[in-house]
């Protein structure tokens, strides 16, 4: 049979979470098909067709799918599900929202946030905020899986899949999109940035996050935050890194004024290099940091900004 990957996109751009999920899907059941559901998203379908290993792209282009509302995604996925023995989505807010509905309707368990495909029916996944790793074997039948994309490499370019338009499915009429307030930023996206610099409660205010922003712009880094900083209202929810926020694994993670609660570590401990700045030398973050600096962040951040300037890191918001 084949596997079906639910594409993550915003109708204009295909997220690289999709190509990463394709990598996982190819290990579960090849060939891989990708479902692009959206509105005026032909370009996204064309981009998905170029992912290596993708045999076919299903395109459902309709106002019904503009915001990937879970109820309409459920009926759409179920309308094509017979042809597949595995359905995978990246563990994004869209994937987490709709995929359990599909699993329930198929009467199969969902396997959430897989870290590794050991065999087509056996997977590793994190439990207890990543403090334990479970190896689970799925029963015979269709597999419904969300994928932690930070641990899978993106499938490359070079594909030449056919794009097939598919019919819309019934609208259950139980829910509809009613608005959004998305954060706008010129910085790289948190989950795919090469460098992430995050602030915690130690920043003390939203205003003080500007100190982080300056350093972030010099390093072309994304800016994140601990739950404590989001709960305190310093920055919006989409900044949150942690067990229930975003999981990141950049080349460099700089934690500033973050003590290192278990649920925060769950979201960043797979980063290649971790640096931490905290004035409390006993802060748990130092136990996992490759480089620790015990310092007052209100001195260290401006100093880092100056020092980076001296070393030729310009303050242009880059890619």
């Amino acid at each position, binding site marked *: 049979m084949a596997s079906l990957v639910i594409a993550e996109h915003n109708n204009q751009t295909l997220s690289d979470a999709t190509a990463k999920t394709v990598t996982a899907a190819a290990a579960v059941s090849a060939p891989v098909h990708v479902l692009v559901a959206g509105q005026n998203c032909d370009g996204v379908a064309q981009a998905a067709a170029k992912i290596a290993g993708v045999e076919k792209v299903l395109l459902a282009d309709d106002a019904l799918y503009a915001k990937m509302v879970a109820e309409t995604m459920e009926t759409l996925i179920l309308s094509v599900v017979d042809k597949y023995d595995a359905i995978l989505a990246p563990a994004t807010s869209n994937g987490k929202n709709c995929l359990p*509905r599909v699993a329930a309707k198929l009467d199969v368990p969902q396997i959430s946030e897989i870290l590794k495909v050991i065999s087509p029916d056996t997977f590793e996944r994190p439990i207890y905020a990543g403090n334990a790793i479970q190896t689970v*074997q799925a029963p015979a039948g269709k597999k419904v899986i969300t994928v932690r994309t930070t641990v899978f490499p993106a499938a490359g370019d070079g594909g030449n899949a056919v794009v097939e338009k598919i019919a819309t499915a019934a609208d259950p009429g139980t829910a509809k999109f009613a608005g959004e307030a998305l954060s706008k930023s010129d910085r790289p996206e948190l989950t795919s940035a090469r460098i992430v610099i995050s602030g915690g409660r130690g920043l003390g205010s939203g205003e003080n996050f500007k100190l982080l922003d300056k350093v972030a712009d010099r390093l072309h880094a994304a800016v994140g935050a601990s739950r404590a900083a989001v709960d305190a209202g310093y920055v919006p929810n989409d900044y949150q890194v942690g067990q229930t926020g975003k999981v990141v694994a950049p080349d460099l993670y700089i934690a500033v004024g973050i003590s290192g609660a278990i649920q925060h570590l769950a979201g960043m401990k797979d980063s290649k290099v971790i640096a931490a700045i905290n004035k409390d030398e006993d802060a748990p973050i130092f136990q996992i940091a490759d480089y620790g600096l015990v310092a007052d962040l209100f001195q260290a951040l401006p100093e880092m900004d100056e020092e980076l300037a001296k070393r030729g890191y310009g303050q242009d918001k880059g890619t």
Partner: protein
Amino acid sequence: MKVLVPVKRVIDYNVKVRVKADQTGVDLANVKMSMNPFDEIAVEEAVRLKEKGKVAEVIAVSIGPAQASETLRTALAMGADRGILVKADGEVEPLAVAKILKAIVEAEQPGLVITGKQAIDDDSNQTGQMLAALLGWGQGTFAHKLELAEGSARIEREVDGGLQTVEVKLPAIMTTDLRLNEPRYASLPNIMKAKKKPIAEKTPGDYGVDTTPRLKILKVTEPAKRAAGVKVKSVAELLDKLKNEAGVI
């Protein structure tokens, strides 16, 4: 309108879990157990709706071992009116939980079910969505804000890019995210009062649900450990190390 709030008994979020040496799971012996934090937020939201007069009754449900009655008592002390304990030992997977909840929903006819978005033990993030699908209801997951209207609800949701609002027809399912509210601590008089509130005891069999796990857990292991690194003395030294030693800037 009634509101149904499922609550799960889990290892307290402050406890550092230990993986058992035989790799069969994590050590639950003599470990502090509490209500799943997202479920506390769900109870709080339901109780606030009742206090505002928008809801007539708040029913808490827990599916788990006999001790899950303590979790229900916590919900009752926060302000829920009555509890239902569905006794089941061992792991009950989200799909089985959703099937039991579906049967309870059909019996109780709530206008809204509020669940936590995920339990902090298995981190599945499935039950609310599965229940919504089984019932054919609309859902507002990862809720940041709830506004109830006649026959519908506007639910503002925390999504990857920021916030999104959906309008769902009632009855519906809502799953809670962290910023929906700040749960109260139960006062001593309310803890005492909660002891007199009724808890009905049931079994999965009463609802015709088989809770045998469908996923086979082959093993549970510890994640790879990170070695602690070095302390640096200055910002300049930190940048030197990041550039020359780690090669990441």
